[in-house]
C-alpha cells in the first residue's frame, strides 16, 4: 500500500500567510503561546493553529481512506466478475 505523507504548514488565521516571525532559528513555540505572522504582524494562538492543522490532517486522511476503499471495491468486483457464487454490488 502506498504510504501517505503530507506536510501541513501552519497558516495565519488572519491573512493565511505561512510565514511567521520567530525569535530564533529552530524555535518551537509552546502550547498556549502566540506566534507573530510575518505578513500582517498579528499574534496567532499556537494551540488553535495546531487544532486547525490536525483537522486539516484528518480531512486528508479521510479522503485518502475513501479513495483506498473505492479502489479496493473496484478490485474486488473485478476479481469476482466471472464467479457465479459470489456477486459484489
Amino acid at each position, binding site marked *: 500500500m502506498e504510504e501517505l505523507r503530507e*506536510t*501541513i*504548514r*501552519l497558516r495565519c*488565521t*488572519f491573512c493565511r500567510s*505561512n*510565514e*511567521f*516571525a*520567530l*525569535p*530564533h*532559528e529552530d*524555535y*518551537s*513555540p*509552546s*502550547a498556549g503561546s*502566540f*506566534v*507573530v505572522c*510575518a505578513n*500582517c*504582524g*498579528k*499574534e*496567532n*494562538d*499556537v*494551540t*488553535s*493553529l*495546531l*487544532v*486547525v*492543522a*490536525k*483537522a486539516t*490532517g484528518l480531512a486528508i486522511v479521510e479522503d485518502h481512506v475513501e479513495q483506498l476503499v473505492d479502489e479496493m471495491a473496484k478490485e474486488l468486483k473485478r476479481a469476482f466478475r466471472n464467479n457465479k457464487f459470489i456477486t459484489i454490488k
Partner: protein
Amino acid sequence: MDAEKIQSDIDLLLTYINDDMENIGGTIKSVYFSFVVGKPDRIAVDEKFNWPEDYLFKIINICNSRSLLKNNSRDFSQIFLTEEGQSRAISVKHGKNRSYELGASMQIATLNVHGPAQVGNGNVQNISNVFNQLLQKIDESDATDEEKKEAKSRLSKFLEHPLVGSIVGGLAGSLSGLA
C-alpha cells in the same frame, strides 16, 4: 467597501459566536447559530452590532468562503463555527497586533507540522538547560563566594515568582545548583 472594516467585522462576529458557544460549554461540532429574523442569535447580533441584514449575510458569506464559518442552510439558520474560525476568534481575543516588531531581529520561517508536533513539556527541558548553564557560568566565574551566592539567590527568587512558575512549571526546585 472598506477592506479593513470587513476584517474587523469578521473578527467581531467570530468573537461573538465563539464567546456565546463557550458560555454554554458547546463545541464547534455540536452548536449552531441561526440568524433568521426573530431568532435569539439574530436578535443578539442586531442589538450588538446594528448591521443591516444584507451586510450581516455578506459577512457570514465571506466567513463561509474562507472556512471560518460553515453555512449548512440557505436561510442562514444553521451556521457552524469551524476550527479556523475559532482559532481566529481566540487569537483576536488574546493576541495583539505586533506588526511594529516585524523585521527587528526576528527570523521569518514557516511552521510545519510533521506528525506529532513538539508542544509543551519539551520546551521546559530546554529552559531548564539554559538555567543549568547559567548556574555553571556563575560557579566558573571569578566572583567571590558571596557574590556567587547572591547571584544564585536572585535567580532562585526569580524562578520562585508565581508568574514565572506558571510558565516554566516550578523549575526552581528541580535545579540542583540552586539548592
